[in-house]
């Protein structure tokens, strides 16, 4: 198995198949990139936090980074399938081109995939670091989240208790998440955060809502009979509305 590049002086890039593949690649790369990013952007909910914006940005970036590679594979496929094809019950003559190895192609392919891999890792680590820092945000409000079959309960620092989550806009919040029975998963969909609720342990997740509105909380881990219905709403309101709601809520709690 040696390098079986044709021994002639012909430049390899002048071969018609190479040109064809290159043209396919030029068409496919933007096509995949545009389709992939549009597909993600149109399907994913509008971000209600910076974290979610980061997730969408990551997925767009990865899509664009992957599209030249995917386009190359598909371009070679397209070149192969548009070359003369043989139908019939007996095989065609053997191919006249016998490259059984190409150290240059192998090396190039491996180096490029290693670089892509490193790129994905570094980008991921940067975003991960940023998300992790949010857990130590000073001035964050703390909410205890308790999952149980099949509802969520929220406890606030001043003793207020609610089955619907209220959060002030633009204030960092740290969730302390646990479960009373089996494993649940606390997913605030439009904010792009998710953390499992484990019985006997408390896990943490942090986010800063940046949009006023009503968003979804869903359980993302099969937790028994009514798992599908274990969801409710999160209301992100202005700081003043939040204070008012919190005061009302704790007064209610004190009375009962």
């Amino acid at each position, binding site marked *: 198995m040696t390098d079986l590049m044709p021994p002639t002086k012909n430049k390899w890039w002048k071969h018609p198949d190479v040109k064809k593949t290159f043209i396919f690649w030029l068409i496919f790369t933007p096509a995949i990139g545009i389709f992939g990013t549009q597909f993600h952007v149109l399907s994913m909910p509008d971000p209600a936090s910076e974290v979610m914006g980061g*997730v969408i940005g990551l997925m767009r970036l990865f899509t664009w980074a992957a599209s030249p590679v995917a386009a190359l594979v*598909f371009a070679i496929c397209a070149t192969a399938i548009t*070359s003369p094809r043989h139908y019939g019950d007996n095989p065609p003559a*053997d191919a006249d081109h016998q*490259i059984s190895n190409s150290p240059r*192609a192998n090396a190039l392919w491996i180096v490029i995939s290693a670089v892509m891999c490193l790129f994905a890792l570094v980008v*991921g680590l940067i975003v991960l670091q940023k998300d992790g820092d949010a857990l130590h945000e000073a001035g964050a409000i703390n909410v205890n989240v308790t999952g149980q079959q099949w509802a969520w309960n929220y406890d606030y620092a001043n003793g207020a208790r609610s089955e619907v989550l209220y959060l002030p806009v633009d204030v960092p919040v740290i969730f302390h998440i646990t479960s009373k029975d089996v*494993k649940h998963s606390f997913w605030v969909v439009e904010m792009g955060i998710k953390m499992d609720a484990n019985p006997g342990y408390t896990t943490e997740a942090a986010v800063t809502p940046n949009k006023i509105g009503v968003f979804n909380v869903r359980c993302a881990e099969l937790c028994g009979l009514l798992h599908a219905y274990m969801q409710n709403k999160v209301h992100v309101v202005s700081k003043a509305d939040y204070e008012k709601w919190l005061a009302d809520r704790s007064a209610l709690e004190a009375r009962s």
Partner: protein
Amino acid sequence: MTTTLNHPAAAAGKSRTPIIERLNIVTAFALGAISAFVVWRLALQFLPADTEVRLFTREDKITLLSMIAWFVGFMTGIGALIAPFRWVMGKDLSHDENMFLAGKDMGIKRYFRYTTDHKVVGIQYLIITMVIFGIGGILAMLIRANLGTPEGGLIHPQAYNSIVGTHGIIMIVGTIIMVTGPIGNFIMPIMIGARDMAFPRLNALSFWLIVAAAIPLIWAQFIGGISTGWSAYNPLAGQAPLGMNGYIMFICIFALSTMVAGANITTTVVRMRAKGMTWNRTPIFIYGVVASVALALPAFPVFFLSQVMSGMDRALDTSFYNTAGGGSGWLYENLFWIMGHPEVYVILIPAVAALMEMAPVFTRRPLFSFNVAVMGIAGISGLSILVWAHHMYISGWAPLLNAPFMLTTELISIPTGMLFLVLVGTLWRGRLWMTMPTLSIFALLWNFMIGGITGIYLSDVPADAFLHGSMYVTAHFHYTLMGAGLTGALASLVYWFPKMTGRMFDKKLSWISFWMVQVGFNVTFGGMFIVGLQGQPRRVEAYAALFNRGNLITSIGAAVIMSGMLVLLYGVISSWRHGVVAPMNPWHAKTLEWTVANPIPLENFAVLPVVTSDPYGYGKEKK
């Protein structure tokens, strides 16, 4: 069923039929059922009543004991214990008895016995794989029917959860055995120039263990089902109904089967390749099969153990996974995924390797970069045992480990890329011979590319915090296991059908089913990607109206897949019964299995072959 046979030992004046000839699938089921019933009755009578707070403990004990009794009874009834028993007594099996076990001159009956011939075991595996896919497919259609409207409600939530769990676990089992079972047992020994497997009796054992395992799973459906999803996370599994015991027994027995098959296939390939078949001349498919079963060797004992502990938590009130008693659900998750991630490559690698084996045949040129292909398979196998906790990024178990596991997971894209390189390199300037396997190579590259890129998003911790547990994950792993894995397995079926059955697979039917399955598949899971991105969790029986459109697309696509699979089933049956009789080497391929005559004689080769070159030398003679 009468079992008297005219072989020399029986004819030589023995008045009674020896026990070895009396045992078959009927005695196995009878003995299994009887022992299960007896043990169930005894346990009901003598087990003390519960004194603890646990509600199901006594019932769990009774169920598990009955299932173990079924297992022991079945394996005794099929004849798995005869040879070990004789060996302990100091009388090994005679030559005639071994020939009888190999199914010599026995016709159709050998398929219902503890037959050791690898070709019989291969066909048995093929049939059971088809049955599993049939049942799993029907369950998938029930899931899609229930998700036809946002309210669900067609099926009771408990039954729905059980259908989801059963679909999951039997499809996983079906895809694990779909290539290494039928093709790995039937074709692989011939491909390496061997007369049989290294341990023929273990080969029969590995198949009949799967049959034995199937019954507890069916049993489970009548005592509460598997309402936990295929992953059966604790503590949910701890509070699940009695059906969970069926899952536990099923996994334990299936894991045994996988371990036995893994040891057997690995030994066969390492020890029994033909003279001259150096590692450089060993076909790439063999590497795929060995990597797959060798990966199962470390993975499945862990699965076995995780379920033994799960059963002990249920029946004996231990608390491996119970936080209140000092255990942890995270322990279960770790054990489960230490099996679970190598397991997806157990499924994937042989299917991709099979297509790599076919690529040179249908492009009439050598395989591109054999060494890179081997390196890719080895790299995936090695890395895949180091990535399990990417299933647990958001479990809160060890947030500090997320970054290292993200690293190992993304590293897998490098050896995976090597497999792509080998396939596109082989397509490059080949002379395409258009057959269903040829189309499958393109389909694999398409589906696996989508499965692979979505895998990169999922491997990224921040993106996974959004995507985890959503339908996006479900679509992603269907793209890898079904879009890549099953595509390779169906191509293998068509490619090796002439050798396994002696007849050609109907070309028109194979093309029709190929297009229906592939188009239906991409519609189904394309729709599922959309609802996942919109935020629909997995394993739900009802959903918000927002997800209506994507689910409708998915349900339509699923119906197309099912129709395509029915066409394929019709193709298998009709081609097997009255297809065109196949020549010895219909594809003009160069591997050894095409050098034996149809039908293949009992020990394959009269004279063992000697290998002098690699099997990809297309076009070499012209130079």
